[in-house]
């Protein structure tokens, strides 16, 4: 197995050398770049997934909640959508360092000590705000008759949300949610500023040692590939979930 992988690696490197890239440099840093891609994927999947869990209650609070809940949800998304992600990341990562003693006391310091965790937390809070706005828009774009009809059939409000409103809102919000996922892949590069070795972090490390601009081109290619894959997958997903809306071609 190892021999086979080595062969594939050597073949890939000589191919890259053949098209004019620096195969010696790639041999030295190539595997690190793959590690970086994996860290970036972890950051994005964790934060977008957890953010989605947070976004639904935020969106529903905005619509169903009283003045207080709706106001709180609005304030939350206004703050996180109105300030740069970099500032939020610094606020949480460096801000947590300031409250080290208090955090140790409540037994949370181990979490905030790790830059990766802080990045995931910040990105989760940030994307939850954007996703909740998408979902709110989707829910509000449904005709009011959907809720009335569900209630006329004797469904409770909670059940109506679960069986009628949420599935439809999800299908409507699918495309903007895909855009949000792509934005998150791009924004995750910010984690490199707080010493996380994601794809961007690895690239900056490789550049600071080799001074070869080429490493930025590798990173560019890898990011574009990730974004393009999401775009294609989303096209398929959208066609599948919204196939009842498609006009036959």
């Amino acid at each position: 197995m190892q021999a086979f992988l080595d062969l594939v690696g050597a073949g890939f490197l000589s191919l890259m050398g053949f098209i004019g890239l620096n195969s010696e440099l790639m041999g030295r840093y190539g595997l690190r770049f793959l590690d970086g891609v994996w860290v970036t994927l972890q950051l994005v999947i964790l934060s977008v997934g957890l953010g989605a869990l947070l976004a639904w209650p935020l969106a529903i609070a905005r619509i169903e909640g009283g003045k207080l809940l709706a106001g709180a949800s609005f304030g939350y998304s206004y703050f996180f959508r109105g300030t740069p992600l970099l500032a939020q990341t610094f606020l949480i990562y460096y801000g947590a360092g300031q409250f080290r003693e208090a955090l140790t006391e409540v037994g949370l310091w181990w979490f905030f000590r790790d830059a990766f965790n802080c990045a995931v937390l910040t990105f989760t809070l940030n994307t939850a705000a954007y996703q909740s706005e998408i979902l709110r828009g989707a829910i509000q774009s449904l005709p009011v008759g959907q809720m009335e009809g569900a209630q006329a059939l004797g469904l409770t409000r909670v059940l109506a949300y679960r069986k009628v409103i949420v599935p439809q809102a999800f299908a409507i919000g699918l495309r903007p949610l895909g855009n949000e996922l792509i934005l998150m892949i791009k924004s995750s590069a910010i984690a490199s500023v707080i010493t996380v070795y994601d794809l961007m972090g690895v690239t900056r490390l490789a550049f600071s040692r080799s001074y070869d601009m080429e490493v930025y081109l590798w990173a560019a290619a890898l990011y574009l590939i990730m974004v393009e894959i999401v775009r294609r997958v989303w096209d398929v997903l959208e066609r599948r979930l919204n196939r009842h809306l498609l006009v036959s071609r």
Partner: protein
Amino acid sequence: MLDLLRLLSFGPDGWGDEILAGALMTIELALASLPAGIAIGLAVALAKDSPFFLLRAAGNLFTTVFRGLPELLTLFIVYYGGQMLLTRLAGYVVEGATIEVNQFVAGVVALSLVLGAFSSEVLLAAIRAVPRGQKEAASALGLSKFRIFRFVTFPQLWRVALPGLSNNWMVLLKDTSLVSVIAITDLMRQTAIAVGVTKQPFFFYLVACLIYLVFSGLSSVVFTRLEARASRGFKRMGGH
């Protein structure tokens, strides 16, 4: 609490003046990138709308690349890449010459490339929203292609494009914070310096966030007025 507020005072003991200078730099960066970005966006939108295959492909490639890359990566490529490229070019003219790229210029170039890619999509949609009949009528009146764009399409673009462009402006305003990474003394950088001295990260980054919030609040007021002005000849849905 009072001690914290004192840290924001102006003068030698407080960081108020430094942070204000940084905030001004942030505004300058955004305002300098806006016209360049819109100009790039318009050119790319026209390329994507052109009948020539090569122009269309180039426009689409530009959009795919600069919308798909992380803004931070674009910034590094422009800053370090520009430095190396210019140095190599200068090497042909004068042996051993090196050129330092000004950080502000690199920041503005990177931000306008990104803004251009995003606004080209908005402007393309706006160009296509002008009814075909208007262009045909203008053409029947004997206007040249350039004059049709200048006098018929162009003045109508803004009404349709403004909401999208205002979104792009908000994104640009927040993206300016990234240039602090290449040592431009913008709001983010000045805040980081203040944090380094005072060891009050939570307070200062919160202040920075609030300043960004004020900026986006002010911008949305301006854009609401601009939109009202641009669509003053039209009835709105639900209006009267």
